[in-house]
């Protein structure tokens, strides 16, 4: 019982090492991969890599000792470009998830707690947004705003917020009927205080888990948008656009291999970590 109560969860969160110890092996691998990418993002410019934008050798060379992942159609080093690509894709994914969580959760909490026409307006808007295939909606928005990573990010926030709105609304609806909330009202707490102090702190777990898993999905969608030319603009070494360049050089498989494996590792790592977090926090059934 003690291990699943929210306070115990919070304490577990604050001591990251204890939490890491409780993760399953796949979760630990996920953490390590994400840690690697996080370090890469902040420090890749200091690494002894060739300039990702410069011609480093002959074009379309297969992997070799000099170019570990070969060179692309312009003779740029794929290995260097792949690592530098992290600094484009991952910050965008982080921003998108953070904004989608903040905006979606805020709207969902308001909808769930206050109900009425506010609820109806927010949730119907969310339903409409969710009824479009994500890639299609993101394409539409990105196309309307023009290519570029910031616009692609904005498009993805528009695609993603309804998921968090629904998640948070469902949680608030469940928690608000608990007796401790009634006790708070009987104790004279106003609506705002009831929501912020007595309801929201108990609603975060599913959002946290979902955000972890979505992080990889967002990275994938960002790459997809770049792949079709709506995300990062050349010559930026963004993973999606690199794969796009590699797609036309079918026999030079290494061009797409580097960024492809990078995307795969991020998506896998976040799925592993999300699954592991769910095992720890969201254990359903008898306490």
């Amino acid at each position, binding site marked *: 019982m*003690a291990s699943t109560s929210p306070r115990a969860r919070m304490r577990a969160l604050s001591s990251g090492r204890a939490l890491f110890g409780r993760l399953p092996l796949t979760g630990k691998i996920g953490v390590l991969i994400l840690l690697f990418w996080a370090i890469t993002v902040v420090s890749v410019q200091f690494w002894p890599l060739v300039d990702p934008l410069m011609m480093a050798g002959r074009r379309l060379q297969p992997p070799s000792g000099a170019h570990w992942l070969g060179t692309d159609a312009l003779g740029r080093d794929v290995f260097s470009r792949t690592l530098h690509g992290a600094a484009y894709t991952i910050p965008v994914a982080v921003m998108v998830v953070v904004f989608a969580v903040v905006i979606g959760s805020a709207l969902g909490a308001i909808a769930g707690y206050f109900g009425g026409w506010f609820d109806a307006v927010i949730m119907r808007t969310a339903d409409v947004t969710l009824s479009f295939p994500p890639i299609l909606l993101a394409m539409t928005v990105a196309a309307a705003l023009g290519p570029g990573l910031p616009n692609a990010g904005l498009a993805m926030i528009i695609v993603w917020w309804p998921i968090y709105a629904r998640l948070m609304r469902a949680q608030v609806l469940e928690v608000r009927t608990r007796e*401790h909330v009634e006790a708070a009202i009987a104790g004279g707490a106003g609506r705002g205080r009831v929501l912020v102090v007595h309801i929201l702190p108990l609603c975060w777990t599913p959002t946290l888990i979902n955000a972890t898993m979505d992080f990889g999905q967002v990275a994938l969608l960002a790459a997809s948008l770049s792949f079709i030319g709506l995300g990062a603009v050349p010559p930026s070494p963004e993973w999606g656009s690199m794969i796009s360049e590699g797609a036309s050089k079918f026999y030079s498989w290494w061009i797409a291999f580097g960024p492809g494996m990078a995307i795969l590792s991020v998506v896998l790592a976040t799925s592993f970590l999300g699954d592991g977090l769910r095992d720890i926090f969201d254990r359903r059934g008898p306490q």
Partner: protein
Amino acid sequence: MSLHNLTPPVLDVRNLSKVFPIGSNLLGTKPAQMLQAVSDVSFRVAQGETFGLVGESGCGKSTLGRCILRLIDPTQGEVLLAGTDITHLNAAEMRPLRQDLQIVFQDPMSSLHPGMTIRRILAEGLRLLKLDAQTEAARIAELISLVQLPADVADRYPHELSGGQRQRIGIARAISVNPKVIVLDEPVSALDVSIQAGLLNLLRSLQERLNIAYVFIAHDLSVVRYVSDRIGVMYLGRIVETGRASDLFDNPRHPYTQALLSAIPLADPRAERKRARTVLEGDLPSPLNPPSGCSFRTRCPRARPLCAAERPLLEDTAHAVACHFPDPAGTEATARATPSTLQTGEGA
């Protein structure tokens, strides 16, 4: 006694009704069905008195309790707290009055915020009093000792306490603001029998010390008898019999009360074998579609055509029933029956 009768009741519930709309038609304009949870309930509670509310599950006891606290807004009727009508106050006007009216819930786990220490939980309740930090800390320590818990529970979390300890915290929270009335919504029914007695005694001693009026909601008759000065028996949202605890238990007049009492096992096996047992047939009718006339007639052994045609009204006497064919009031009870006065216990 006569002087006591003049003091206004601290809680006066007048003709309280609550209807829940269930479902809605296609356009969402009109509810498909109306659930009559509480119908025309009136009772008064004097300072320091315990009024017990008994009834089967689903008879509207808890809804009634929540209506009194305005956790649910009643559809009709008024609740007067020390003479002030609180039914039509808005949230801001209600807030200062919440000091006088508190509640203890059935489930001691879900009624405490799982992410707060006991200290914070009690401090949340004390916000109404706007104490400074030092007074607040002292008050919290005092409350914990009042409910007979060790001082170190203050820094624990609810899940670290036992059920009985948690319920004591629930009680501490309720008494923290010096209320005049506490609604106790099945406060012991989630606990082991061995713990119930200790908690009931605690409630009693707190009542004597702090002069609080209790509205004690329960389905367990022996518990209600133990704590109550007066009792109201509810059936399908209505009070069908009300009176002093001793009168009601010694001389039940309504067939439903008689059936309830005959379901209590007697400790003496010989007496248990001898007595006639009234066993009710069928289930509680749906409050979505209550029977015409007397709501108890579908299960009543005495039902006659009149019962289906006309609803019996609750008498306005000390030991009152809502029945066309009740047993006569006991001689003692009749002698005491003075209309619309409050009968309080000997302690008055």
